[in-house]
């Protein structure tokens, strides 16, 4: 049973299994374990970023394609659902319509970019995706009548997802069963199914061909695999998954804007998550996303506490001043890449082998 759900891809390390179970349990029970508004927001963001990073890893880690257009597809999903809800009104059919249009647009773009440019060398492909993604971001902010420009668009969501909605009046473990909770579980189970879908794809015969292409595309072609077809298909799958992740994020935030979806900062975050977690393994994306988003949200608070506790040692207190949190986040990245060149997952698995 577990084999089928996990597609035969087990963590293969006790520590990693424990870590993944902790992430899974934390996310599954987040509304009950961490009732604060901020905590639940962090949990939802982790869910979405696990999928976003995993779908990017399908390209980078499994197929060896470097793309900078991933946030574009993420943005298309968010804007698709957002603009549809904004324009048509807060109904489920609007969600469905927005999702369909967004998926169509994403697949079309991924197909065109793939067919035109996956034949060229990796560096050119990276540049082309960078150009297309930048153009798209500019377009989104210029078409302000449609997209709301730099301000983005806030919109209403279907009634069942509104905080005022009560599924049952009673509270469970002190948590109200309201629309916010339902939205959270929509995000959670949506993300979980997408993650398991990706896990299946990378462990299918198709997934092995992608790895073969990453290893030696010349030889893969000589074995009878038309690498352009496989690369384009991987590109489309990855784009579609990112689009769905974007749609989930939009439903959660009830907002779609350039800073939360299209910005280059998010692209860098995804890259870092994949590299820190471990390229070529989807579990890396899960662990990486959880750690990254937690650090992004709580490092500052942690440093504030440390700094206040160390007032007796002014130098240390000064070094750990919460204003310097980005510096320390950077230091953490450098250290983790230095000590775990194969990512956290790679490191944990090699520990087991020793």
């Amino acid at each position: 049973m577990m084999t089928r759900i996990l597609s035969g891809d087990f963590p293969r390390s006790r520590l990693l299994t424990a870590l993944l179970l902790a992430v899974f349990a934390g996310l599954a029970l987040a509304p009950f374990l961490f009732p604060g508004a901020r905590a639940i927001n962090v949990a939802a963001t982790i869910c979405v970023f696990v999928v976003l990073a995993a779908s990017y890893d399908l390209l980078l880690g499994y197929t060896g394609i470097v793309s900078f257009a991933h946030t574009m597809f993420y943005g298309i999903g968010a804007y698709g659902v957002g603009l549809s809800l904004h324009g048509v009104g807060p109904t489920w059919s609007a969600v469905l319509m927005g999702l369909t249009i967004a998926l169509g647009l994403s697949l079309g773009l991924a197909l065109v970019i793939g067919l035109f440019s996956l034949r060229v060398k990796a560096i050119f492909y990276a540049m082309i995706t960078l150009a297309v993604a930048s153009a798209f971001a500019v377009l989104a902010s210029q078409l302000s009548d449609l997209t709301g420009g730099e301000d983005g668009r806030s919109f209403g969501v279907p009634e069942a997802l509104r905080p005022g909605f009560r599924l049952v009046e009673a509270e469970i473990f002190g948590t109200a069963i309201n629309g916010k909770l339902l939205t959270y579980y929509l995000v959670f189970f949506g993300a979980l199914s997408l993650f398991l879908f990706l896990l299946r794809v990378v462990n299918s015969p198709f997934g092995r061909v992608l790895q073969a292409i990453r290893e030696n595309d010349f030889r893969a072609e000589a074995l009878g695999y038309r690498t352009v077809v496989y690369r384009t298909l991987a590109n489309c799958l990855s784009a579609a998954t990112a689009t769905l992740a974007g749609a989930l994020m939009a439903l959660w935030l009830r907002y779609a804007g350039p800073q939360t979806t299209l910005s280059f900062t998010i692209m860098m975050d995804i890259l870092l998550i994949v590299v820190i977690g471990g390229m070529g393994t989807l579990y890396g994306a899960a662990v990486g996303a959880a750690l990254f988003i937690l650090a992004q949200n709580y490092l500052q608070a942690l440093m504030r506490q440390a700094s206040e506790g160390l007032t007796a040692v002014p130098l240390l207190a000064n070094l750990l001043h919460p204003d310097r949190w980005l510096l320390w986040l950077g230091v953490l990245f450098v250290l983790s890449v230095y000590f775990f060149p194969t990512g956290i997952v790679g490191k944990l698995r090699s520990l087991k082998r020793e």
Partner: protein
Amino acid sequence: MSHEVANDRHPLPREGGRGEGSQVTEHPVLATEGLTIRFGGHVAVNNVTAEFRPGTLTAIVGPNGAGKTTYFNLISGQLPASAGTVKLYGEDITHLGAAQRTRRGIGRAFQLTNLFPNLTVLENVRLAVQSRAGLGLNLLSLWSDHVEAREKAEHFLHRVALAERGGETASALSHGDKRKLEVAILLALEPDIFMFDEPTAGMSVDEVPVVLELIGYMKAQGDKTILLVEHKMDVVRSLADRIIVLHNGYLVADGDPAEVMNSPIVQEAYLGAGVADHV
């Protein structure tokens, strides 16, 4: 989205059929007509016309730089021809890419070891089995569920005496074992045309027989078209039904091994006076 890809191979158009001893009278499976490739001013393969029939092992010999591997690359589609055609079962396939030619039955082993270094030995062979079975675009089934593909791959590994090493990564193999793996991958493609490019180069003496026996076995099947680039003359003499000699990109001799070996042009162009005695 699971998707079976139809195998777009030709059925073998045989006149005599297997085992009737009529191999030589059959139509050519593969033919090159005026095949030429230019790299700038240098013509690496120049107007080479040859036909290859089933049941025949053709050795392609010539000094280094004669264009043997380039000729192979033109046939298997790794390089585009500047002029001339490659025909498979009479059909012009010059415009097809390497992947399509492989799917039509042209199998190729490479001279320089060309594997998937970080995948396991078994996975390397399985990828070939899977390509032959047209399973590559199957997205939703589990790789590990395709037991028949794994067993087939294990069978081919066994054939080259690598069965025990299936779980290791390909990069961990010794040079000789990598060459054997290369042969196993070619066998796993189950092509109609086998192209071996110096299959025993760099192998230790005790490893060579495994590969030679395999090539001999393929030949004994009677319906395979085998092309072999080989420097070792004893190997060529023991296996070849026919020898083609390339020199500076030209085809300079083509025929019965004994005849070709003794022709003056070959003695001069390829073998040189000193080596002639050895042969």
